[in-house]
């Protein structure tokens, strides 16, 4: 069904707690047919998600992180989306990219749950939240009506929804943003999926509510053992919740590393520059200093350079970077970097001067 010989190197990063791989993305390339030609939003993305871990996908807007998550869930419009011929999204032994619409229905909400960024638009305003939780249970479980209601209320209690019985029969507009996000989490988890994909789950929320939701997600992960794929642009959220991180730039994975390595010893110049450009608070505060910036712009989809996609903005760029596309190399067993001249993991310790 799928060719097993993979032409490019695939990261085989194993986390410290090397567990079972639950989701494996292999050479994923996603293109869209547009009026201007084929636009490749995601190129050759590979990573593994292990049971029970939280893997972060970070990158700035337009880097392809959401397209990656929607490709996994096959939520992109079928009529103009093309996946690479050697692309695979392996859930167990199934390649989701080859699934029919009906087969995907069995996966979505059942084996993989998903939370979206906008808790208002992700809920249907004309149905009660109970009805919406019930929909997934009706499709994927054999529980009867009464049991489903019990289960729905139980799920709302699990996500710490205040007065869950009453809220079950309320409409989305009667809930605050934080409560709506709790409902979405309850919906995503009600069929006990192996994997939860959270696409910017806290971006639309205030910091104090964000802290509540992040803590809830950490607790649920510890309790249910669900593997979490967290897509975000906020490095602070990654630092506080993830075990491993995939950094994306211009549609490619540029670095995969354990969270501590990534923040303290970034190997890719982009990761390093990104970390430096964030104002720091507390003991390491950057108060009043000029922030290091990344000059220039992300290359457009139709004008990708032949060499490294970060070359134009990279302070260490050399001729080789412009001529030749770097492949993924693995310096250590649990980290990969796509760079001809990765930063020395030890020398680059000075990302922030640790006082």
């Amino acid at each position, binding site marked *: 069904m799928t060719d097993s010989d993979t032409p490019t190197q695939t990261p085989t990063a194993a986390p410290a707690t090397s567990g079972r791989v639950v989701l494996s993305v292999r050479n994923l390339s996603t293109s869209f047919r547009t009026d201007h030609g084929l636009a490749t939003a995601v190129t050759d993305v590979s990573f593994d998600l292990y049971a029970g871990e939280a893997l972060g996908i970070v990158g*700035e*807007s337009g880097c392809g992180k959401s397209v990656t998550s929607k490709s996994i869930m096959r939520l992109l419009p079928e009529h103009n989306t093309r996946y690479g011929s050697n692309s695979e999204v392996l859930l167990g032994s199934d390649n989701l990219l080859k699934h029919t619409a009906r087969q995907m229905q069995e996966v979505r909400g059942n084996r993989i749950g998903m939370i979206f960024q906008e808790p208002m638009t992700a809920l249907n305003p004309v149905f009660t939240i109970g009805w919406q939780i019930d929909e997934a249970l009706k499709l994927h479980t054999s529980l009867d009506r009464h049991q489903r209601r019990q289960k729905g209320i139980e799920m709302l209690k699990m996500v710490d929804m205040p007065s869950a019985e009453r809220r079950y029969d309320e409409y989305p507009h009667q809930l*605050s943003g*934080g*409560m709506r996000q709790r409902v979405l989490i309850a919906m995503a988890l009600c069929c006990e999926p192996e994997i939860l994909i959270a696409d910017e789950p806290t971006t639309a929320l*205030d*910091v*104090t*509510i*964000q*802290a*509540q939701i*992040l*803590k809830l997600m950490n607790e649920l992960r510890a309790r249910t053992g669900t593997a979490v794929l967290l897509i975000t*642009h*906020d*490095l*602070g*959220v*990654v*630092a*506080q919740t*993830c075990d491993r991180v995939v950094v994306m730039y211009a549609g490619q994975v540029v670095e995969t590393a354990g*969270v*501590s390595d*990534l*923040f*303290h010893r970034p190997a890719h110049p982009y990761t390093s*520059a*990104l*970390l430096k*450009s*964030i*104002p*720091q*608070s*507390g*003991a390491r*505060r*950057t*108060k*009043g*200093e*000029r*922030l*290091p*910036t*990344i000059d220039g*712009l992300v290359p457009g989809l139709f004008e990708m350079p032949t060499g490294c996609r970060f070359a134009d903005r990279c302070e260490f760029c050399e001729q080789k970077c412009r001529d030749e596309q770097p492949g993924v190399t693995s310096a250590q067993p649990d980290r990969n970097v796509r760079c001809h001249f990765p930063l020395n993991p030890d020398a680059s310790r000075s990302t922030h001067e640790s006082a």
Partner: protein
Amino acid sequence: MSLLEVRNLEKSFPIKGGLLNRTVASVQAVRDVTFSVDSGETVGIIGESGCGKSTLGKTIVGLYPATSGTVHFEDILTSDAKLHRQMQFIFQDPYSSLNPRMTAGQMLSEVIRFHDIVPPAQTTSYVHELLAMVQLGSDAQYRYPHEFSGGQRQRLNIARALAVKPRLLIADEPVSALDVSVQAQILNLLMDLREQLGLTILFISHDLKVVEHFCDRMIVMYLGKVVEQLSCEDIYRDAKHPYTKALLKSNPINDPDDRGDLFILEGEVPSPRDPPPGCPFVSRCEIAEDRCRTNPPSLVQLGDQQQVSCWAVTSPATANASEG
């Protein structure tokens, strides 16, 4: 003398309803806000969505008429039209605040002509000067907003605000719609301009990291009220109000080795339609006492730079009896 003096400023919006569309209630967006900003200072206004920080900014600049209270700019009431050139506003969304059918050059020269900033013959060269000031090339004048990136649009917004040579800039979340690397560019630009032009900036933001980095002083708002004012020198040491402390602890730190427990502030912000009679923060406060529920605390000066509105900080428990 302070450049901007805000005294007891209130802003409420009526809620119309019922058969005759009468005013049935009101949203009290800004409640009794008093503060001043010195010339050359950068003051951050921080708070969560719905706390009234944007309304405060727009009321100060005159985009909303105040319900009560006054705003003075160098002792002149801001309702005076002469002041429009002294205060400029930068909006959060860099795209929707630009006219999509006008080029950058047209937009800037419109402002310049309307306010008669330079003689008409010099308009073009002044446009170039403005674009250079925000580090956009002079060919940018022929481009439309959709041809710019997010960061460039925000530069254009800044150029338009600076065209009238204002002394006070009110920036409402100027970097929150931008990616971090672009955010750093805009913050650096604002810092340079602040130095070059001696600008005073009122910086409205929900992002504590940015405010701490960029501002001299911060004003923390909750449910329409100022709960604390403090210097940004060392906020982790100085913060006194339980809400400010909670904000600091909820802010995810960029260090995976410093994970700790994210501090969890229970509950959510009450509706500004029906704020609690006592302290606005009482429903989520860990150290709330009886007096907090009934008596609103007032801002009390602590030291040179700090004001706190909290009974537990300003008059610790023993004084409870004498409160009445």
